[in-house]
């Protein structure tokens, strides 16, 4: 599986046979997934399909019951900080910022693995300390500019509006200089304009040479964004391929609209879109 598909692209992520069982429940069942450099790959599936669990297995938050995860050819130990050190960064479905730290501090924490200054250096203010601190700050500010949060650098993370909290999570993840970024529902709760902006942001991230694996329920978003889409249903990967192909696949349609899930996800989404649209029109009236 480590062979490259084209001479210019390399395999960034290679997860093979990942299985995660919680007691009797198999949340993820021997899933294989490859992400190549320069790719944006989508991961979709109904609620409870095991997408987040799969992410947790990739990032070492869960130790997979079976299977292994390799990043650029080396197998990763299931320890979150080592995974991040190796070059995989992530965001969370339910935003997990350091709520009582400032926006800038949040991003600086993201730089943790890329800086070396230890306690002695801090206590004795050794020569390298000031320079490293300054450099980190500059890098962090660059990322805040990139995500459009520079003006709010000194705000507490908890005081940002929802959409900006999501952006900050992305900035924080980027601060660890990853080669692969995992995004867990980055547009959940966003209105259509914000979703558009998020798309632009993800394209810009890809253009920086960072591969992206994204979980999302918004099909339009996935269609616009992804080179390739994998579908997870009840822990199993049932289809993988270009977005248009996957969307037309009848097994996928059955999974979303078929008997076990009668209507529920679709209705929810329709309500969500409606609410978002209502919101956007009222905003438009204000202006």
């Amino acid at each position, binding site marked *: 599986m480590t062979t490259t598909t084209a001479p210019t692209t390399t395999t960034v992520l290679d997860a093979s046979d990942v299985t995660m069982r919680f007691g009797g429940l198999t949340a993820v069942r021997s899933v294989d997934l490859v992400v190549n450099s320069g790719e944006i790959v989508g991961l979709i599936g109904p609620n409870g399909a095991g997408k*987040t669990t799969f992410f947790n297995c990739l990032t070492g*938050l869960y130790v997979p019951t079976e299977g292994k995860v390799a990043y650029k050819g080396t197998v990763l130990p299931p320890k*979150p900080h080592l995974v991040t050190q190796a070059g995989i960064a992530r965001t969370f479905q*339910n935003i*997990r910022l350091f709520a*009582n*730290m400032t926006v800038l501090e949040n991003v600086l924490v993201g730089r*943790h693995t890329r800086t070396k200054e230890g306690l002695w250096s*801090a206590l004795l203010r050794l020569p390298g300390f000031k320079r490293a601190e300054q450099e980190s700050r500059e890098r962090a500010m660059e990322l805040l500019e990139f995500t459009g949060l520079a003006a709010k650098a000194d705000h507490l993370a908890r005081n940002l509006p*929802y959409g900006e909290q999501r952006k900050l999570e992305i900035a924080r993840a980027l601060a660890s200089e990853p080669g692969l970024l995992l995004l867990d529902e980055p547009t959940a709760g966003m209105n259509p304009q914000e979703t558009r902006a998020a798309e632009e942001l993800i394209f810009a991230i890809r253009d920086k040479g960072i591969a992206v694996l994204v979980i999302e329920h918004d099909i339009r978003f996935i269609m616009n964004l992804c080179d390739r889409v994998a579908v997870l249903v009840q822990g199993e990967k049932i289809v993988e391929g270009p977005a248009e192909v996957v969307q037309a696949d009848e097994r996928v349609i059955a999974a979303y609209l078929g008997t076990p899930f009668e209507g529920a996800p679709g209705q929810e989404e329709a309500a969500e879109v409606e609410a978002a649209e209502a919101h956007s029109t009222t905003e438009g009236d204000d202006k």
Partner: protein
Amino acid sequence: MTTKTPTTDGTATAKADTAPATPLVPLPHAAARAITVAGSALALVGTFLAWTWTDEFPGNLTVTGYPGGLQVLTLVGAALTLLFALSGYGIRGLGWLTPGGTNSPVVLSALGVLGTTGYTMGAISQELGGLVNLEPGAWVSGIGSLVAVVGALGLPVDQPYDKDAGRPGPWGRFRHSLTAPEPGRAEELPSWAEILIIAAGFGAGLYVFAYGIGTEYSELFVGFLITAGFGFTAVTRAGLLKRLSALTAKHRNVTLAAAFVAAICFPFTQSNDQFALIGANILIFATVALGLNVVVGLAGLLDLGYVAFLGVGAYAAALVSGSPQSSIGVHFPFWAAVLTGALASLVFGVVIGAPTLRLRGDYLAIVTLGFGEIFRITMNNLNGNSGPDVTNGSNGIPNIPDLEIFGFNLGLPHNVLGHELTRSGNYYLLMLLFTAIVVLVFRRSAESRIGRAWVAIREDETAATAMGINGFRLKLLAFALGACLAGLAGTVQAHVSYSVTPEQYQFAGSVPPNSAFLLAAVILGGMGTISGPLIGAALLYLIPAKLQFMAEYQLLLFGAALMLLMRFRPEGLVADRRKQLEFHDTGQLDVPDDKPLPDGATGVAKAGA
């Protein structure tokens, strides 16, 4: 003013028809202010008259023409009230006194005068047997202060009610009259003037603190607490503290130096060795509390057995001190003893931390509580009967000799600059050096990559590890550093108190440095700050030391005080920049709930997976 602050200026409340807040006592503005001024002037004059006929009541309040004892406190409070009240007239040169609230400081200081005077009158009547023991002076001051309070409550209220809170009842209106808007931005001053203001601020702080420690009888101390408490709140409401802290934030190094100089001056204000000893003990307590603040305030690890590390340092220093009762019988020079103590604590910290830090939250608290007790019990049992003879069991290690540093014997009084520096004064200064080191360590580690990682772990450990932080290693680092700092303080403590016994290192006891009080000092003072634990420790040590008549109720009062504090000021006396925003947040956008939904229970699963 920016549009964000929804407050009106203190003086602008004349437009009473638009501002819905009404004073508690319905009086015309001019009359209220005149009454306040007259009342506090009366209270002030009263302090120059005799308050009682006999000098049996401590402090001698029988002299006419010269205030003494508790009268001085009434005098100071009345003067403060007068100044604030006059500042409200817009008198030139007094405006700087009230950049924040104009009238709530008047109410508060008037209440302070009434409290002090009323307490004094009560104490006189109670101790001498009846109101007949009060001379006219006491009545003049008492009535004056009452009139001042009534007048002050008739002054316009500093800020309107909350728009959506509705009209509060009388108690709510009373509490509202004690609040004030934040001061606006200060004018730029030349930096030498700002530094001078900082110096004056610390000078005043030192004076108040030294006065409190030097109070010779408990009546005076109670009066001091009342006056200082109300006075401090009044100064805060007036916005002066905000102004000062803005300056200290601007000149941080100057502030640190000024605080240090003020602290050095303290033993020179005390001629009584007993009071200097209180100072030295406060410093020990405060230093250990600051060390605990690394563990609790920064890394968020609730350690209920922290005092054991102080004990390890003290025992280590005692064993190598050359005490005839030490089972080792060596006599290290002080620097080596300090290293031994700090190193022993460090090792102990790592040994305890390595297994326990894998637990989170409440479990960690319980296990550290257990280890703290294990330390004490072990020291008790290493007595030759239940175990090898190392520590003399419950007798501890007495007769620890005084230190001699560069031929300077800390046990003997020395004459420095014409002032007799007593034994406790010497140790105070030595301890101050250690406090300074701990302050420096705290500040530098907090403002670094390591400190940020600690705070990140405190905020959300799962997210922190997902950002590449090795949670266990950094928690162990915080634990070990905290232990090491406590060990440092322990080495001095062993010498100050002549002996170390296991009973000094309990979880909860009546003499301060114990785990419960340490934690209380950190929480009361303000987690994650430098000055918070120092102030918290000073209060928690001083109040029981000065009010020994209520020793039996000490823990009860302590609990009540903590509960009140958590109700009214959950961020502690000194608010961390973050904490302040956290607890008193205003005007911010749609903030999601603190912890949304557990993310597929990632945290739980980590342990179970």
